[in-house]
């Protein structure tokens, strides 16, 4: 115990010394060229030292706690939640409460809040969609925003040229997203892992650049404005339309959760699981890899297309700038942060990724910094996400085999 204490002390001290040495030129020396003076800010050196020392100490403490307690604590909270959720009555009550909350929500908060939550829900749909590709299919996809753009531009362009209405555009956007997913699925069928990531990333950028440069058709960087909001029998006021879209989003989230849960337990879900675990073994089981990969891409893209149409209807203005690589990465972050393959995890992840930046607008300059820190810390302390996937196993009762 004592030996390990001194060892920790030594490494933390060394870390602090190193940090002091490295930051010495920028933190301590300050040259004032006009007065040709050099001021030495020795206090800064002390602060850096103390800061690094304590951070490093906390870090070591957390690491050691993780190594000791990991087996005891792993998944305990999740199990309790799962147990509560498994009870039919409790689940019914919780679901009813949630539904009531969703219905009441727009009436108890202001317009701005409804808008933010709607974006959060949109991101949930996107996250759940990408989760099919990454969490279930195990295919690292970095061009997901392309499908999102597909849905949004689908609505915008069809409105622009043919005056298409929201309710017709919604399914069409989703279907076109899925078709586009199959289209880009074909060339990347043989790729896996890093290579797949690179190619899908490129597809995402190609899509954006196309939208940007086909300016005769898509209006390029200028974007498409005055896309109509969703109408309900008559045209709605801004307040009504915002609330209405919120409800639509909530229903679509419920719908996607329902479908994706079904998918997870279906034959396709099992095939995807096998494919993710081992492609060769999956093939030897008679699983059609080509078909399954295309299905994965199509299903993933379907939800992105849906979310895209909603985005267009929500903001009433879209341009290619909304579908950059950063957007794809944000969705990926939501999935990884929440827990790949875990529906509650992805929902939480998506809400965190969208809502935290919204509510901490004051800190927006440090947003990316915070993301960076979180993404470094997460894999060390919660490698499987905030709410990791709990695999449902079928269990078989013991049968006496000796007879």
């Amino acid at each position, binding site marked *: 115990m004592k030996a390990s204490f001194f060892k920790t002390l030594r490494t933390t001290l060394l870390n602090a010394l190193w940090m002091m040495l490295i930051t010495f030129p920028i933190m301590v020396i300050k040259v004032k060229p006009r007065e040709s003076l050099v001021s030495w800010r020795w206090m800064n050196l002390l602060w850096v030292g103390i800061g690094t020392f304590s951070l490093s100490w906390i870090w070591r403490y957390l690491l050691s706690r993780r190594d000791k307690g990991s087996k005891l604590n792993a998944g305990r909270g999740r199990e309790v939640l799962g147990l509560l959720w498994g009870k039919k009555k409790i689940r019914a009550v919780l679901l009813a409460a949630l539904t009531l909350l969703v219905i009441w929500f727009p009436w108890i908060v202001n317009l701005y809040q409804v808008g933010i939550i709607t974006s959060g829900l949109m991101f949930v749909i996107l996250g759940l969609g990408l989760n099919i590709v990454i969490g279930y299919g195990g295919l690292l996809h970095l061009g997901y925003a392309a499908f999102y753009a597909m849905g949004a531009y689908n609505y915008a362009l069809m409105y622009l040229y043919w005056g298409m209405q929201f309710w017709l555009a919604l399914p069409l956007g989703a279907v076109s997203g899925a078709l586009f997913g199959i289209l880009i699925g074909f060339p990347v069928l043989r790729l896996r892992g890093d290579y797949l990531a690179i190619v899908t990333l490129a597809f995402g950028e190609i899509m954006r650049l196309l939208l940007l440069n086909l300016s005769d058709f898509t209006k390029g960087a200028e974007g498409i404005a005055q896309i109509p909001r969703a109408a309900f029998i008559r045209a709605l006021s801004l307040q009504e339309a915002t609330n209405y879209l919120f409800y639509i989003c909530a229903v679509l989230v419920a719908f996607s959760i329902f479908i994706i849960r079904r998918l997870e337990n279906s*034959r396709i879900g*099992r*095939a995807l*699981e*096998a494919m993710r*675990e*081992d492609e*060769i*073994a999956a*093939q*030897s*089981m*008679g*699983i*059609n*890899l*080509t078909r399954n990969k295309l299905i994965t891409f199509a299903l993933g893209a379907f939800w992105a297309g849906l979310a895209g149409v909603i985005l267009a209807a929500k903001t009433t203005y879209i341009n290619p700038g909304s579908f950059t690589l950063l957007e794809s990465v944000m969705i990926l972050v939501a999935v990884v942060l929440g827990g790949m393959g875990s529906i509650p995890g992805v929902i939480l992840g998506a809400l965190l990724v969208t809502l935290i930046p919204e509510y901490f607008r004051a800190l927006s300059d440090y947003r990316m910094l915070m993301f960076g820190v979180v993404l470094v810390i997460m894999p060390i302390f919660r490698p499987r996400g905030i709410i990791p996937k709990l*695999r449902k*196993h*079928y*269990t*078989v009762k013991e*049968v006496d*085999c000796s007879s």
Partner: protein
Amino acid sequence: MLKLDSVHTYYGNIKALKGISLKVNKGEIICLIGANGAGKSTTLMTISGIKTPHSGTIEFDGIDITDMAPHRIVAMGMSQVPEGRRMFSSLTVVENLDMGAYLRSDKKERKDDIEYVFSLFPILSKRKNQTGGTLSGGEQQMLAISRALMARPRILLLDEPSLGLAPLIVQQIFEIITRINKEQGTTIFLVEQNANMALKIADRGYVIQNGRIVKADSAGALLEDEEVRAAYLGV
């Protein structure tokens, strides 16, 4: 039942198989022996369709399967136990077996088949709710074979079932392979480095060297063959 006619398979520019011809009759146990890198696994991968041959033809039950997709070949009644077992390690034993029956829709018979493979490998029934990754090497190999059997194959392709296993387990696994052949009438095509064991249970054998079949004879004759003894049996 299975016929390969001058099959060539390349990995890029490297020729792995340079004209393999062999024949497997119904109900036989055939083994293919050879050193590391001789092309044994490639032969299996080519038969099961995971690797497409550059030229030559593969016939299964008189049907040309040379360019057929692997899942369709499985549907025709050919199952493969890939090299290195390749478990679905996060799935339980029963789920692994269920995955083996992926193409079948008969629920009741599937249950009977699970019982049958449990009777072949009783240890698996004790592990049935454990995940594949937590099994020992021997158990994983047993599970891999059982999983392939769940597809009710007419021909079973085995890729080095003895790889990395204790001699006692190897013995047990080979006994089961013979039993499957006798009880179910399943044709067995076995690829092995452990030539001694393989030839003992096989009816006929082929020796592969640098992507070519260099010898084909009955298993007994191969066991007696001077060259084979020197090269593969270490006698």
